[in-house]
């Protein structure tokens, strides 16, 4: 699927069916791939890399364009079961156009970062910045989910919340890898600035990107370390909650067994004093209740 857009007057706007200087290909089909590799001379391997979530971010200089593969957070859906994944995206910068290759249809050019775009190279940098911002936003979501799961674990006896935390831990490893990979790409963008055609303002923006990306990496690293280091404690809490339940059930079982013992003794088919006494039924019942009360008293006295 292709979306035509136009960068003009500092803004990117949809261009209907008319070819603009920004073209977005979402999961290109066979004919679109043929056009990209034959007409636009995109390297087939680089094109596949743009759609491969496991590919590392990188920068390649081709005779007619610059190919940039960067990492971005994949949009989370409720079927992902708390696994936040990373996807790749490809930017192919020509002197007169920018071709964007994505594996899924996601909203591009979100937020204020795209309010004033000076040029196509500037748009490239803003897309990388948008990806860093997206990572930061997802880290906040992961932190909020982690807090929420912790609250649930405090009273839980099930493994599902622990498994969700493991999923979050795994997500953070993916994110760390993706953010680190983007960091290397930004450094290479800075080194190749003259070849790409970045202006002095663009270079200043790249410096900002390096700082933003490194802060994002540190944040992900801190969250990952906290999750990993607290995991054992959380496993113990769930185990302890289960132990409390078993202990309470055991005490209840004992409390029921004692009146059963009292009643059983008096149910034996032998003679015992006062068997025919009119109050004997109430005496036996009283002894049974007394035995339950004694368990309760011992329970309180021992602080079980």
């Amino acid at each position, binding site marked *: 699927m292709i979306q035509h*857009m136009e960068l003009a007057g500092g803004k*990117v*706007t*949809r261009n209907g069916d008319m070819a603009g200087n920004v073209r977005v290909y979402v999961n290109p089909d066979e004919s679109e791939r043929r056009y990209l590799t034959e007409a636009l001379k995109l390297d087939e391997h680089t094109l596949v890399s743009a759609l491969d979530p496991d590919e590392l971010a990188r920068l390649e200089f081709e005779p007619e364009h610059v190919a940039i593969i960067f990492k971005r957070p994949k*949009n*989370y*859906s*409720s*079927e992902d079961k708390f696994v*936040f994944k990373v996807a790749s995206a490809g930017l192919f910068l020509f002197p007169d156009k920018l071709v964007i290759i994505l594996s899924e*249809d*996601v*909203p*591009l*050019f*979100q*937020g204020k970062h795209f309010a004033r775009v000076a040029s196509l190279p500037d748009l490239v940098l803003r897309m990388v910045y948008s990806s860093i911002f997206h990572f930061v*936003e*997802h880290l*906040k*979501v992961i932190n*909020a*989910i982690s807090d*929420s*799961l912790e609250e*649930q674990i405090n009273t839980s006896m099930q493994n599902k919340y622990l498994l969700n935390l493991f999923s979050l831990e795994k997500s953070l490893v993916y994110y760390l890898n993706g953010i680190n990979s983007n960091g290397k790409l930004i450094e290479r963008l800075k080194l190749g600035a003259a070849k790409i055609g970045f202006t002095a303002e663009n270079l200043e923006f790249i410096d900002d990107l390096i700082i933003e990306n490194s802060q994002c990496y540190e944040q992900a690293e801190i969250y990952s370390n906290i999750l990993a280091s607290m995991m054992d404690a959380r496993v113990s809490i769930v185990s302890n909650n289960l132990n409390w339940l078993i202990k309470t059930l055991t005490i209840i079982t004992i409390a029921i067994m004692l009146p059963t013992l009292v009643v059983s003794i008096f149910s034996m088919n032998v003679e015992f004093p006062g068997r025919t006494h009119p109050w004997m039924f109430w005496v036996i019942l009283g002894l049974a209740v007394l035995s339950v009360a004694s368990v309760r008293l011992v329970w309180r006295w021992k602080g079980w």
Partner: protein
Amino acid sequence: MPRRSAARRVVVTHPPGLHARPSLAIVKTVRQFRSKVRIRSGDQEADAGKILEVMSLGAPYGAELTLSAEGPDAESVLDALAQLFADNFGLSSL
């Protein structure tokens, strides 16, 4: 303060639907108020103050949601949420 209840219908107009970031925006908004808010999407219902529940709704683009609030500032929280939905959770794009 008297307890009040109110309800409002909203539509998800953000193209990717109610994914991670919109869910966090909803939870953060609800926590600024004292009223309890519930979101109903089809036959699913979630506490709007709990991110785990909001994310599990998985409401797609175009889904019609019913927001119901109960508490002293029920109308205010629903106004804020309706504005959040109208602004596409601050994630407006092309």
